[in-house]
């Protein structure tokens, strides 16, 4: 039989069984909708998170971490002033400075507090901070619990303006030595949560190092973390590679993106796996539907065999029915998904949906394939039908 004739016969026999196929079609459509909505929601959230991270972060920044937690390890992989000075001479490096990490574990809720201090900024190190909304001041995380409590009561921070606060700064992570530094608050900013509910974290600035140095006198400083700024974002990976070869681990915007979106990908994969599982169950029911349909149409199939249809063409018609159900169900699912998403965008116009259009032909193909697989056994059953037995039953 010609392809279009097989298709016509399959379409005809499929839609003759309207009542029986409606539940199966509904199942396929809904599971297709579920898969598409998961994909679209995942892509949209991933896009939002990416934009947010890119918005917060610095595309040129590389955070360098020493593998030595105490800061007192072998001299080959410690971060100190001479090491930082050597990084400043690397190709494509615009600047390098140590991070003096503050004790931020005292935060009482998911909000971070960022203060603007009245010291002069180090313009060579963080020039980008001088652009945008905070033109003059530097930012740090408030480390002192008492001050945080005070800030929590008045998050606008206006009462803190002009006050002198005390910073306790460990010389390196895990170190018991602290620098105690009084600074004057020249501004307060309540840090917002990001979309994942995480606190935005900030690093101290290089001027703090001088304060610590003043506090510690002439003791040599080793740092747990340092920041290197590339001259261009595209040079970040090259610089990070050099630093990694020196025995340090690095973290840049790409790593952050990867970390932030990993859990999201996990949820999307679990969601799609669940939806596929439902899909497979529905496909199995197609197998059942077609098998019982073959039984019901024994006489019809017997007549067709008697007048010259081959067993193979009968099998192709039944197989075609399965594929038709798969395709029609998937198209129904796509329509439901599009209508739902359209309704969603009407309700939430501020959210721009990231629709992966490639997903639509994919789900149609997957649906057709799964249903074709489910149709194999009923098709074989139809092919094996004994024409004489069906005619004798009459």
């Amino acid at each position: 039989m010609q392809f279009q004739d097989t298709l016509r016969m399959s379409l005809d026999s499929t839609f003759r069984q309207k009542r029986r196929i409606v539940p199966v079609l509904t199942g396929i459509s809904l599971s297709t909708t579920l898969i598409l909505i998961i994909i679209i929601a995942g892509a949209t959230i991933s896009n939002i998170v990416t934009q947010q991270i890119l918005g917060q972060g610095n595309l040129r920044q590389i955070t360098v971490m020493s593998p030595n937690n105490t800061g007192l390890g072998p001299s080959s992989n410690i971060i100190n002033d001479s090491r930082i000075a050597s990084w400043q001479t690397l190709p494509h490096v615009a600047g390098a400075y140590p991070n003096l990490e503050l004790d931020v574990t005292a935060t009482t809720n998911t909000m971070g507090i960022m203060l603007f201090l009245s010291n002069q900024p180090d313009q060579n190190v963080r020039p980008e901070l001088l652009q945008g909304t905070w033109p003059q001041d530097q930012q740090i995380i408030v480390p002192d619990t008492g001050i945080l409590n005070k800030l929590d009561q008045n998050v606008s921070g206006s009462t803190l303006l002009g006050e002198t606060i005390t910073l306790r700064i460990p010389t390196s992570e895990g170190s018991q030595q602290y620098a105690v530094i009084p600074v004057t608050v020249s501004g307060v900013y309540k840090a917002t949560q990001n979309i994942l509910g995480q606190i935005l974290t900030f690093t101290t600035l290089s001027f703090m190092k001088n304060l610590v140095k003043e506090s510690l006198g002439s003791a040599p400083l080793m740092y747990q973390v340092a920041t290197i700024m590339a001259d261009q974002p595209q040079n970040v990976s090259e610089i990070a590679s050099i630093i990694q070869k020196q025995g340090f681990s690095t973290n840049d915007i790409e790593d952050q993106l990867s970390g932030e979106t990993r859990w999201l990908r996990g949820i999307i994969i679990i969601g799609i796996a669940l939806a596929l599982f439902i899909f497979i169950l529905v496909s199995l029911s197609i197998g059942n539907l077609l098998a019982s349909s073959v039984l019901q149409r024994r006489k019809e199939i017997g007549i067709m065999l008697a007048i010259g249809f081959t067993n193979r063409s009968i099998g192709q018609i039944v197989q075609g029915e399965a594929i038709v159900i798969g395709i029609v169900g998937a198209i129904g699912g796509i329509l439901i998904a599009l209508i739902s998403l359209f309704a969603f965008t009407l309700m939430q116009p501020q959210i721009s949906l990231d629709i992966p259009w490639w997903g639509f032909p994919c789900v149609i193909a997957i649906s057709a394939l799964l249903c074709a697989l489910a149709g194999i056994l009923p098709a074989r059953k139809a092919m094996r039908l004994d024409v004489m037995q069906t005619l004798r039953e009459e």
Partner: protein
Amino acid sequence: MSATAVAMNNVTVHYHTTSNHEVTALNNITLAIDYQKWVSIAGPSGSGKSSLLHVIGGLLTPQSGEIIVDQTPLHTTNQQMRATFRLTHIGFVFQSFYLMPHLRAWENVALPMLAAHIPLPERKKRAIEALARVGLQDRLYHRPAELSGGEQQRVALARAVALAPRIILADEPTGNLDADSATVVLDILTQFVAQGATVICATHDPLVIARGDAVIHLHRGVIVPE
């Protein structure tokens, strides 16, 4: 070309019932039927008339013996070849018409042509011509339920001759028809024979037997004298 449309030599057919009893439908049948003849196969129920038609039509395979139909040795062919043989050499007419209830008259007639890969416009044209041959040119778009028994059998006749087979096998073609309808159907079959077809008809209707050129009497799967 040989003048023998059907040649059977010591053909024996057994089959198993659903309760797994073995039935000998045909026992050492030897016969020859010439082209352009109307041969009736007569006998009581269970005598093997339908089985003989089904063996000639390639629906049943004999366990032993040789059968050559329209130059095709059916005893050596596989299932696929027999299906193609039925399509191109045989036209079947059944007592219960066996029309597809959801298809219109012309679509029922065009069904074998669909299996023969004939394009749709040609199928429709030939189906309309075949329906005109049986006098149903005004019933093209009727479904079987909208036709009388006689008209349904005429649609089945049109379907049987749609691909111009040389042999028409009719199993009790008038069994479900009143006398007037039966006469119309028999007239059409006579007309087919006149146009070159060979008609082999399983029946116990004396009207049908009277139309034929020869009668083969069967009793318990064996050919017996009249």
